[in-house]
């Protein structure tokens, strides 16, 4: 971190080398040039977290409550695709979602979609891609917390004339909050920093802050700007995570 901080304060170029000049302006330049992408990344991260939770909760709930003795099998099946490399899975999506690919090509052939319809190159594709890639990180903490809920508590709620929904809302949901808390943390942070999905599935107007760091670091070889951007992103995430833990991660959710 100190190393990164010091690079962020240097000036120079790849050919001439970089010197530490305490060039604080690297930070303000980075923010003024790239704030749009910070905002977009945080927004995408939030979208991914929300959509991921909505998808993952029913899955985790079903496996935990109705999986029976096949629980481990279901979890294994769920994780199976994730034994393949992250990048390869993402590139596979670019084939599946291709304009004339197996999904949309077929739908277009039978006239359900207009010829011009496309998903690749849009924000939707990027958010969907990240959500998919991070789904295990959303499901697993939820599953663990749901699995550990004592069924007799649900029974007790029903004995006290709680409807199914009420029992869920007043017993299961509060007891699974630690899992929700962990799932949000484990999804939001990597989602915000992701750049592979935006690169493979995105197009103009969908780049995230990770893409800009990659651009500055690898293509423009402006190491100081790249380090400043990475430093700012890390600071935002760290402060965000600490605040989040302070505000929500306290004792009451674990009671």
């Amino acid at each position: 971190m100190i190393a990164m901080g010091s690079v962020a304060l240097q000036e120079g170029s790849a050919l001439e080398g970089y010197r530490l000049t305490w060039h604080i302006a690297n930070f303000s330049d980075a923010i003024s040039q790239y704030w749009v992408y910070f905002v977009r990344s945080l927004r995408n991260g939030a979208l991914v977290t929300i959509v991921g939770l909505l998808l993952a909760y029913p899955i985790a709930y079903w496996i935990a409550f109705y999986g029976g003795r096949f629980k481990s099998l279901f979890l294994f099946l769920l994780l199976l695709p994730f034994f393949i490399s992250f990048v390869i899975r993402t590139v596979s999506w670019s084939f599946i979602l291709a304009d004339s690919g197996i999904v949309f090509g077929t739908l277009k052939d039978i006239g359900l979609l207009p010829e011009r319809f496309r998903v690749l190159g849009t924000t939707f594709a990027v958010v969907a891609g990240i959500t998919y890639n991070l789904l295990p990180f959303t499901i697993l903490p939820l599953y663990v917390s749901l699995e550990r809920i004592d069924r007799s508590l649900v029974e007790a709620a029903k004995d006290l004339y709680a409807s199914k929904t009420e029992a869920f809302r007043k017993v299961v949901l509060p007891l699974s909050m630690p899992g929700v808390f962990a799932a949000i943390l484990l999804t939001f942070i990597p989602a915000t920093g992701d750049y592979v999905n935006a690169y493979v599935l995105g197009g103009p107007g969908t780049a995230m802050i990770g893409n800009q760091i990659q651009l500055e670091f690898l293509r423009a070889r402006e190491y100081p700007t790249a380090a400043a951007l990475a430093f700012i992103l890390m600071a935002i995430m760290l402060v965000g995570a600490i605040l989040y833990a302070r505000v929500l991660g306290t004792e009451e959710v674990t009671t």
Partner: protein
Amino acid sequence: MTEEQKPDHVDPTWLRGMTMPRMSRRQLFRYAGAGVGALSLSSILAACGTPAEKKTGTKPGGEGSPEWWAEREKEGPGDTIQFTNWPAYIDLAGRDAQGNRIRPSLQAFMDETGIEVVYRADINANEDFYAAIRPALENGEPTGHDIIVITNGQELTEMMALGYLIELDHSLTPNFNENVGPAFKDPTYDPGNRYTMAWQSGMTGYAWNTKFVDGPITSMRDLMNDEWAGHVTLFGNNADAPNMAMIELGIDPATSTPDDWQQAADLLSSFNDWGGLRKWDDQAYLTAIENEDLWATMAWSGDIINDQLYYPEFASFRFAAPDAGTVVWTDNMMIPAKAENPLGAIQLMDHYYQPEIAAMLTEWNAYVSPVPAGGEIVKADADAASGDDKKVLNMIASSPYVFPTDELNAKLHSYRVLEGEEVSQWNDLFLPIFTT
């Protein structure tokens, strides 16, 4: 609430790990201390800055010097050569019994020398490939490649300036010395061919699929057609799009000024504003046009002509250079520093300068060959062939994009050569357009 009071159906250790609001302060400091300890050396180094080693030229007796090459010759070449190139660039002829691709021109070398060549088509963009091998080069370690192919441009210039390439000994390249075309000998970007030998040269232009687009597309602004919105790409690298935009605007890249660059940048930005551009693309465009995701795109000549001629399903592809002129570039073979088999590498590079081998490449990939004598063989083969072969070979032999006519030659420009401060000025202007 203490640990003991927690409801027993929740595993306290797990909960602690997942939800504990704060690390104990003492722990935090302990970890931070260990972290700083581990980083201190590197951070002290980093604090001094990262001096670029200005290693212009070869040290006497060092890697790339005549004495060093003489020693390599005494040792003889190694058993394998790692050759890394761009996709769709080498002749193919089906697969052997083990399912490996057969590349006749490469096979000829392997049969002749007994050296095994591991060929990879891994390079999709100069910037990204250079970024991938740069850390190894910076640390003076082998990159794992014996021959790489890089286009003339910023990356090549930087690699030469930083001493990341092995100087070639042209006493070991008899075929090159005899057969290289005048345009490829002593190029301006590498005087005297000190570090590079051309692999192929080609043009950037526009391609379209006649299934969707009638064409011809002869200018960048033709692509901005609302009917094709979402099915159009331009190259998002630091050379093709900026130079093509300048030519489109009637500016000669060679004499262009930063004001001209701004105009080109405005033209390119207008594609972002338009909203119909699918992507700022790299070599992946070829897969995209083959998948019919793209209907019209900026393209490299041979990629499209090869698809059109050799694959019936892509017969509807067309390529054209823009009316206003276009850029011609050269992809160069070179040996990265600390390569493990430099002697084998230089022999293989020279192998491709035999006219008959060069002709095998041209007849397949439809790019401009650095070996004019190979062109004569292509034309002779076209005359001698019959049936479908004759049709294909005739098209290659008569294509202005393989054998440029005087008319086309007059419209060709090289990439703008950037010096000193211009590099970051150029990159700051253009690169952000490609990542939005």
